[in-house]
């Protein structure tokens, strides 16, 4: 189910880029899944979950590379692989339309084989220093990140941010030909809203694997009830995220030219989904409404902030995944209900609004750890790639589009070559 999200990401990204780069971005999505499978099988799983021991805190796993320990882990491996692939895919959308294939291969294997596993180890392994499953928990409570707002989305989103900063904006996005800053950033709309929505719906469906599915990793009585709760909170958060982003965008527009913005609606829904991911099993359904509503606002705010800072994020992955990943972790610290925590984690820790501040502190630690770890490693890594010239395609390639320069032709062939003059079809259109 979570794997199906790969299809969702592929469609979302394909719809959001310009037609001249459609093939390129889809190939990247396909390679993502493949690279993640190999990398996570060979090294990642071992780093993340090898040699778990609740009584000992370790920074990284050191056993079970190549799934050598046998058949019992296979269920969880498959599930975790889908998570790792998700973290890697998030980056693809941000750097779309200007990143080389070789850089893409390098960082996606680096991310799934090393960066992501260390984070997963810290939070989800029994030996992790932030884990709720260890004996010696941080602040005595351990971090609650049920399905990975921090582990998956923040990691992916933070890598994406670093990559976008190092890589620079697309040609003509913020600066004109002479290098002067534009008054208003050029809009570079994607080529197919239908594909974007298809992607959004597929992602939403996949999220039901992501959130309720995460109960399956934990075996205890009542898992089914926790899964049902997770499914409900997930639904409500997505819905309120969608509505809040749309409404804010609508009322923020100048009177008279207010529009219902489709992109805001879909990214608001995704933002709500990301934000509820950490706390989906420990907050009450009513709490999902403020979490989702704030997520819509956080998305719009972060998106505007990026524009101000001239950081170019093709599919708005940083606002959706990073900003809402942070908000999701913090929201869990605020809204965690001790009764539900007792069912899901067996401890009964309170969020700030229920009278306890320890969980919030632990969640902040998680956020800082992930941001620090990812940016300290990915920053130099991307800068190195940039230095040796592997990171960005040449100016000519970028202008003509990567499909023609790299992939032997455009993604769409709608007209017969001979009849192309006769047709008055707008040539940018596609299905």
């Amino acid at each position: 189910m979570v794997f199906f999200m790969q299809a969702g990401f592929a469609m979302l990204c394909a719809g959001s880029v310009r037609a001249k780069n459609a093939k390129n971005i889809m190939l990247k999505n396909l390679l993502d899944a493949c690279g993640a499978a190999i990398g996570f099988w060979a090294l990642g799983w071992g780093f993340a979950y090898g040699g778990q021991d609740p009584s000992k805190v370790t920074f990284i796993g050191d056993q079970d590379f190549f799934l050598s320990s046998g058949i019992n882990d296979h269920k969880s491996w498959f599930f975790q692989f889908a998570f790792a692939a998700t973290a890697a895919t998030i980056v693809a959308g941000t750097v779309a339309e200007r990143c080389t294939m070789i850089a893409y291969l390098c960082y996606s294997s680096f991310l799934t084989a090393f960066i992501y596993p260390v984070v997963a180890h810290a939070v989800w392994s029994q030996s992790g220093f932030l884990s709720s499953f260890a004996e010696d928990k941080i602040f005595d409570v351990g971090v609650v990140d049920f399905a990975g707002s921090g582990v998956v989305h923040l990691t992916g989103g933070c890598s994406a941010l670093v990559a976008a900063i190092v890589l620079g904006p697309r040609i003509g996005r913020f600066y004109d030909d002479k290098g002067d800053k534009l008054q208003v950033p050029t809009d570079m709309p994607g080529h197919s809203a239908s594909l974007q929505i298809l992607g959004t719906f597929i992602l939403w469906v996949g999220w039901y694997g992501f959130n309720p599915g995460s109960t399956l990793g934990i075996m205890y009585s009542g898992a089914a009830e926790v899964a049902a709760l997770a499914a409900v909170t997930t639904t409500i958060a997505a819905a309120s995220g969608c509505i809040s982003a749309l409404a804010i965008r609508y009322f923020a527009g100048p009177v008279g030219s207010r529009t219902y913005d489709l992109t805001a609606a879909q990214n608001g829904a995704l933002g709500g989904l990301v934000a509820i991911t950490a706390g989906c099993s420990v907050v009450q359904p009513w709490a999902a409404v403020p979490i989702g509503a704030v997520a819509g606002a956080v998305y719009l705010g972060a998106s505007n902030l990026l524009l101000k800072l001239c950081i170019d994020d093709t599919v708005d992955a940083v606002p959706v995944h990073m900003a809402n990943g942070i908000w999701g972790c913090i929201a869990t610290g605020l809204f965690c209900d001790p009764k539900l925590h007792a069912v899901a984690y067996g401890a009964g820790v309170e969020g700030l609004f229920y009278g306890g501040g320890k969980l919030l502190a632990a969640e902040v630690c998680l956020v800082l750890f992930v941001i620090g770890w990812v940016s300290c490693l990915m920053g130099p890594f991307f800068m190195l790639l940039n230095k040796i010239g592997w990171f960005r395609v040449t100016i000519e390639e970028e202008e003509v589009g990567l499909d023609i320069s790299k992939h032997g032709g455009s993604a769409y062939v709608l007209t017969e070559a001979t009849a192309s003059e006769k047709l008055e079809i707008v040539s940018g259109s596609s299905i």
Partner: protein
Amino acid sequence: TEAQNIDCVNDVMLAAFANYDSSNTNFWLMFGAILVFFMQCGFAMLEVGMVNVKNTKNILIKNVFDASLGALCWWFFGYAIALSAPKDTTNFSSFIGEQNFFMKDVDNTIKSTWLFQWAFAATAATIVSGAVAERVTFGCYIVYSIVLTSFIYPVVVHWGWNTYGWASAWRENDLLFGCGVTDFAGSGVVHLTGAVAALAGAATVGPRIGRFDEGIKLPQQSVVFQTLGTLILWMGWYGFNGASTLALGTSGGDLSNAAAHTMVTTTISAATCCLTTVALTALMSKDKVIDIGAANNGILAGLVSITAGCSSVELEGAFVIGIIGSLFYLAGVATLEYFKIDDVVGAVPVHGFCGVWGVIAPGFFTSSDQYASAYYSARAAKCAGVFYGGTGDMLAANIVFILAVIGWVGVLSTILFQLCKMTIGVRVSLEVEENGMDDSKHGGKVFSATPVPTQEV
């Protein structure tokens, strides 16, 4: 019994299955809910494939909103009205649920039911958006979705499926005609409700410019998306029908067999109806065009037709239901054409006409064996279809239910759309319609104007 211990005045249909295994049940319902939710994606693709390219964004945002607004409405009011008990629980002929608003005091064990039923509610709302596409205002759209998912639809659910509902087959006594309505997964409850509202909307809003002018065929964007949508819907229907057993196993019997039977009847009816519709339209058209629109809508018509009877008819019954479903669909198309009502995606023929046929069909084709395995064995002989030795009581109950749904939804939604027409307006201005709503309302056309370099061949 065990089931009554679980603080469960609100535990509606599950109460029918004492001692159910909650873990399996939850899994099964969530699995079903996700399949049904995926139908939202199917509807979005179907509708986007059938509208003009200039209204792409408009139809897409409505589909996203059906799910989103629907979730909040269903949480605030819908669930309570549909599935909770009335205040006076001795009143066994109730009209509306009166507890658990905002899901207060709802145990976690019921949450999978909420999810499953939400996915159904979103489906009912989506049916309308396809019929009135390309011309309805966004404000009117928001009003009717809220009213439909918060009030009109939940009341119908309460009648048909709640253990206290007056027409329900899940009641313990005082059943309508001694049987209650046999509408297993909602031909009447979901599809007919959506379609009647769609008909009221389409009639109030009026046809698109040029729809009924001679010699003009309004353009359709992409059959590829339409077919993708149809196949997704077909898959989602396995959740719609199959998971409506609501549980996999009970102490009373193994419901997984009933679920499997349901999926087989669903398959056969859809396939039969598709082939029949394609054959009939090809024979009726002048130049024997094999029409993919007919194939797509034929599948959907077959699916709607089997939805009420999917668990209680035999396989040959499903085959006949599929064939007749195709006739109902074609009759619906012709009727709308005659009255010059413009239904962009054919929602009224598919969901309305076939919805009516779907509810009638089990009255004829239900066999007592299957009725016993999906409903109750005690009244299986009495409540079988008339072709299988039943008394006809169930047929009568089903017909009464159809009339009640048409009356309730028809009156309320007509009032609703007329009120909209008088206040906020139901229809966009002429210029907006001509230019398409993406440009005027949603910040730009859907496809960017950046030229694609044509490929050298």
